[in-house]
């Protein structure tokens, strides 16, 4: 607060479809940008730490919300709670914590006040050091919900770190889909990088994601991964992007080195001569150009 350095540039890497290469791209951008905070917002299945190997500094519990607990000594088994619960979370006078949404209806209704309603720790978020920057990610407890809220928490922490350490970039590895966690990951970003692949499902899922991006009115660009897997669909994606006025940031060729790197838990940019790494460097430059034009205006 108080200092007048420009706020960090926030990029989120998203994809409607899972497994298109978000984490591979995000990890590479991490290496190329050097001075940045990295945030893994795929809190369901956070993998970025495998490649970036952060040195853990702090862990914080994440309280997702409250849950109901029935006190069996007070409970008279009247069954009102079960009748009114919209989430089928109560059966045989017991609450299924995985189904309980934490609305508190049962607690309000219970004539015996036998329902305790308390905050539960649904996961943890971690903060660590990476070469030249900071790292934030999170782990949700098995089966816990409210991941959108955790995504917001991760991003908030990452933004605060970028602010306090005056790091220039904040790069967010986003979740798949178009639901609540994705919405949370898109809030407040300067550029969404959408990674897709030339398959019927890659195109279909990109179309749905683009509709969501347009609602957020955030600038976005497209990256086609494994671009030479299907030339026909690849050019369909390119013309779709053009119609939607979305710049094509790059086309990463199908490259065995990507798998080799992943198996060794290495970042593809550690193999600078392979075709995939070369294209990713180009994508990084295109992203830079985007921000230069933006600040130039």
């Amino acid at each position, binding site marked *: 607060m108080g200092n007048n350095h420009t706020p960090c540039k926030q990029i989120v890497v998203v994809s409607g479809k899972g497994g298109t290469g978000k984490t591979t791209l995000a990890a590479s951008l991490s290496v190329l940008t050097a001075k940045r905070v990295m945030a893994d917002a795929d809190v369901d299945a956070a993998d970025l730490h495998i490649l970036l190997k952060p040195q853990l500094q702090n862990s914080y519990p994440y309280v997702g919300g409250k849950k109901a607990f029935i006190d069996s000594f007070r409970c008279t088994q009247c069954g009102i709670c079960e009748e009114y619960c919209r989430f089928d979370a109560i059966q045989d006078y017991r609450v299924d914590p995985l189904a309980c949404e934490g609305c508190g209806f049962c607690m309000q209704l219970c004539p015996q006040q036998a329902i305790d309603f308390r905050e539960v720790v649904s996961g943890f978020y971690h903060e660590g050091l990476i070469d030249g920057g900071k790292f934030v990610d999170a782990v949700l407890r098995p089966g816990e919900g409210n991941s959108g809220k955790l995504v917001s928490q991760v991003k908030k922490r990452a933004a605060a770190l970028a602010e306090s350490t005056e790091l220039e970039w904040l790069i967010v590895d986003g979740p798949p*889909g178009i639901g*609540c966690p994705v919405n949370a990951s898109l809030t407040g970003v300067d550029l969404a990088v959408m990674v897709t692949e030339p398959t019927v499902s890659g195109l279909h899922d990109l179309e749905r994601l683009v509709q969501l991006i347009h609602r957020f009115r955030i600038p976005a660009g497209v990256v086609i991964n494994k671009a030479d897997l299907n030339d026909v669909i690849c050019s369909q994606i390119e013309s779709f992007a053009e119609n939607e006025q979305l710049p094509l940031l790059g086309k990463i060729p199908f490259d065995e080195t990507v798998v080799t790197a992943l*198996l060794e838990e290495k970042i593809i940019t550690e193999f600078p001569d392979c075709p995939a790494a070369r294209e990713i460097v180009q994508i990084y430059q295109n992203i830079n150009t985007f921000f230069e034009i933006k600040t130039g205006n």
Partner: protein
Amino acid sequence: MNIVIASGKGGTGKTTIATNLTLSLKNAVYLDCDVEEPDGHLFLRPVVEQTKTASRLLPEINYEKCNFCGRCSEICQFHALTVLPGQVILFEEMCHSCGVCAYYCPLGAIREKEQPMGIIRNGYVSPDGSGFLEGRLNIGEMMAGPLIQQVKAMADPKKINILDAPPGTACSMVEVVRGADYCLLVTEPTPFGLHDLKLAVNVLRVMQCPFAVVENKAMEHNDLIVQFCQTEKIPLLMKIPFDRRLAEAYSRGEPAVRIFPHLKREFRLLFRKIELQLQTGNLVIENSGELSDRVNNSSLKAVEWQTLSPERNGNSDGK
């Protein structure tokens, strides 16, 4: 019977397994429960017989009755309602449709009205006759859970229902698995695949759902998944080698069993193994080392697709 096809990591092949398994069985129904990104229809190309709107309940304020007392806002755990002088603001995306506000409004000024959140499509796959059900969430809608529930409610319990789950291990995935008889976890032999498989295994153990693993994009000299399954005593029911022809068929939206019909046998075998695992006691795998040994060692070795179609290798490439 409800069989869920899930995976921690995205893009490991859930839809591939779910669609091909459906096409290989008689009397099976494919349910697309990945309502954020439903893709199964691209492969099954179903004849859609019915499309209906799926809704959820949202509070509606009757301003003739409301006196802005603020009770609704106070009682809502999700901060979905804000009461200002002369106005009640609803944040639709925060609302969980629990009904608490309407029930507790002292003036009865809140009515719940149905708000469309997506569509459900119902049909069949020609010419196989497999059933098709799909939930499709509206863009901008946050809550996948209620739609998944409605799709599942339409399933016929007498049939073999193959439920294609969303990636991840959070609420949507849990919603699909809830009440299911069995879950297949599809993974790939990479550090990401293994890491996310572990997360998914933890969820299924907490939920006490019987499960097994299918390894997709298997590579020679890579036993990452095999070793994990052995250590954890989890049956590994099928191994599908990485094959560019399969990836290309997928990219065009062609199910593997349509191009390589003999693969149907492999999928029927997969299903028989699932049945056997369930019959052998319907145990949670965690506590059943003996069962998983039997599944792994006896006649039930993981299916390895050594050759996709030796006699057709020459012309199965390309279109």
